[in-house]
């Protein structure tokens, strides 16, 4: 008896409701954590030496003399009006800060994920096919290393070798000083901006800067993607339809890469989306070693200074990314799921 509008609108409303609740919960928890950590946010704003009058004035300005629920309510109302407040540390509007640091993270995370997927999936497939043989063992060692080696150590060693000794890649930072500010930022992603502007020299320099940190982050996601692909593939290769396909005389390559891999694409998309989302949060250690001014450094230093507007703003961004990528992978399922075609 359900009418058409209800059938269409109900799922949409349900998704919207879930998203709103998730956000509210996320904000509330982050807000409370920010208030219970033993750091005085006023000190963060005025510094250690400020006289009592300045301290009191700023405390009032920040609204910290109000009860907690009231502080949260004020914050919520402002956020709904699109005002994320001002960061204490940078004294910029939080939104402007995030607009500045996020493209750096986006650039790094995207290149890293591309590397991770381009190498990780084939490795996983090869390992599954060669189960128990040398190739499988070798790939297992490589991916276990990716899990267990501390990323800052890997970063420093990578810098020392590829930048310091061999000089194959450019050093820390997003771009050489000589190329700084040459391209007017449109998206903030230097490689994209320089390509759009046709400044290829800048593009190559930016790529040369991003490739090492991205390879190191990519190695981590590679390790995860390869292991997941291997286990999905193993489950798939044991299925009857694979045997049927082989009996029908299909080539082994077609059976593995087309039929089996095609069927594990759906769970793999979730894995890749989650890996990507994780990288988009920013990676503090890698960003620190590579002097990469990204979201990870921003949120961490804000958190350490009790700069709650920035932390909450960052949390909303990260939350949006996760929810957005989840919705996106849901959509992608329909595209790649053979049954849906």
């Amino acid at each position, binding site marked *: 008896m359900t009418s058409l509008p209800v059938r269409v609108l109900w799922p949409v409303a349900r998704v919207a409701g879930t998203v709103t609740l998730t956000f509210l919960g996320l904000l509330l928890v982050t807000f409370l954590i920010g208030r219970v950590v*033993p*750091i*005085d946010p006023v*000190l*963060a704003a*005025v*510094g*250690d*030496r400020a*006289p*009592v*009058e*300045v301290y009191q004035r700023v405390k009032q300005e920040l609204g910290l003399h109000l009860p907690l629920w009231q502080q949260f309510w004020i914050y919520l109302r402002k956020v709904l009006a699109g005002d994320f407040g001002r960061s204490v*540390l*940078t*004294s*910029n509007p939080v939104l402007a*800060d995030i607009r*500045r640091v996020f493209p750096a993270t986006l650039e790094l995370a995207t290149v890293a994920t591309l590397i991770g997927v381009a*190498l990780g999936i084939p*490795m996983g497939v090869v390992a599954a096919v060669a189960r128990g043989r040398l190739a499988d063992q*070798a*790939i297992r060692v*490589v991916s276990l290393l990716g899990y267990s080696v501390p990323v800052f150590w890997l970063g*420093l060693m990578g*810098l*020392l070798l590829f*930048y*310091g000794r061999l*000089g*194959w*890649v450019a*050093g*820390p*930072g997003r771009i*050489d*000083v*000589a190329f*700084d*500010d040459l391209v007017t930022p449109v998206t903030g992603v230097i490689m994209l901006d320089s390509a759009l502007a046709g400044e290829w020299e800048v593009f*190559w*320099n930016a*790529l*040369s800067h991003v*490739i*090492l940190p991205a*390879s190191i982050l990519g*190695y981590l996601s*590679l390790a995860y993607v390869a292991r997941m692909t291997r286990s999905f593939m193993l489950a798939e290769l044991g299925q009857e339809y694979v045997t049927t396909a082989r009996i029908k005389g299909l080539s082994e390559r077609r059976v593995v890469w087309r039929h089996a891999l095609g069927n594990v694409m759906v769970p793999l998309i979730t894995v890749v989306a989650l890996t990507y989302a994780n990288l988009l949060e920013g990676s503090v250690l890698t960003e*620190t*070693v*590579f*002097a990469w*001014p990204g979201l990870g*450094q*921003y949120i961490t*230093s804000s958190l*350490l*200074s*009790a700069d709650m507007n920035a932390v909450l703003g960052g949390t909303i961004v990260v939350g949006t990314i996760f929810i957005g990528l989840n919705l996106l992978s849901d959509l992608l399922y329909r595209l790649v799921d053979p049954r849906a075609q």
Partner: protein
Amino acid sequence: MKVVTWILAATVLVAGPALAATPKDTVVMAKAIDDIISLDPAESFEFSGSEAVGNIYERLITYDLKDVSKLRGELAESWSAGADGKTYTFKMRKGVKFHSGNPMTAQDAAYSLQRAVIMNKTPGFILTQFGFTKENAKEKIRATDDQTLVIETGEQVAPTFFYYCLTAVIGGIVDMKTVQAHEKDGDFGNEWLKTNSAGTGPFKLVSWKASESYTLERWDGYWGTKALPRRVVVRHVPEAATQRLLLEKGDIDYARNLSKDQIDAVRGNANIRLQQAHKGSIFYVSLNQKNPTLAKPEVREALKWLTDYASIEESLLRGLYVVHQAFLPKGFLGALDDKPYRFDLAKAKALLAKAGVPDGFSVTMDVRNTFPTNDIAQAIQANWAKAGVKVELIPGDGKQVITKYRARNHDIYIGSWGPDYQDPHTNAETFAMNTDNTDATKSKTLAWRNSWDIPDMTKQTQAAVKERDAKKREATYQAIQREHQRISPFIIMFQQIEVAAHTKDVDGFVMGPSFENDLYAGIKK
């Protein structure tokens, strides 16, 4: 191992063009600059911010970087103190232009100081302590004509005290017309000036991106000797190992935050030079007098004898700190070089026995979890354990430790203190004054934070800041410091030295006693 080969192959492919050395007319520095919150001279109060502002703005007077006791005019050509001890007259320098091209006059100077007083940002007290308020600023600080600035302080103070305070960053003179043009909602252009410049100094600000970089450009209309580099780029590189690598590769000219190990390592590199300067920061341990054991005079003294200053410097701090045991650092009027304490276990044990704790006691120490604080804390823990004093280290983030310290909930605090301006009163006030030891006090000095109630020393310190005779003033501070060394709950251990490492192709970076005296103008490449 396939992957490694793949990655290697991938990196070879994108290696692209050869690496560029830094441009000839541009000086590039790597430094931790995430402490900057504003580049408005009336607001900037952080080390890195002070350095940038010091290259962009000038003050009425400044001091000789080699001998701080010698004052000289910067934007003021001459100055005098009136017979009443409250009125000061400054004659402004002619022919000075702001970065906008506007001529600099006494009106600009009056506006700049009034603005700093009325806005009263964090460093505002450096000026307001002379009795200026929001209400009286325009009357007490005034330009009588284009060349003459008259300032009246609230009460009589030592003239040197007032002069040295004017040399601070907050005394920077801004371009009134330009700043007023950018005023929003009566903010005195503060919002705009955070990220823009309107000064007279040898450099103007091109851009500041928080926790990323700032860029200065030579101001060709500068009235004095023009700067040599056309551009100075200071990049935020938080990791010291990364700074060293960048320097060794020649991708930067200066590395500013090398740690001890890295300084030792680059010492042997023929392409790298080191330069250093004494800085005002004092490293100390303080004993909260709310703790009854720490409140015993013998215990305070015993702990001073239990600390092995020389070997801590040698093993942890070489190139970063030197032993110094008085609250006025080298480079200040009245600085004291006496070092009465060294590690002496027998003496310490005797004192502990006299205090009634012959076998030592247990106590906690709040430690900021960064180099070198945690390293020094561990060394002290080992030193003190020799006499049975068991220290439990409580590690924490900087802001967290400070919050606890300011609430007087600690047993022992370890950390550094940097002077606010180049006058002895700044440290004397905090280390040797406590006007009201109750929780409701307005003046939360370091003495107060350690609950050290000292009515007599407070009076002495208050008198010193009014002493009009510079020689007598100097002698008073030395007397206070000797007494302070003997009885205070502060174990003052080290004075900071700042080390910059640079390639052999550049030179001429000047490092003065204060961070705003780190000057780029003379850097040759």
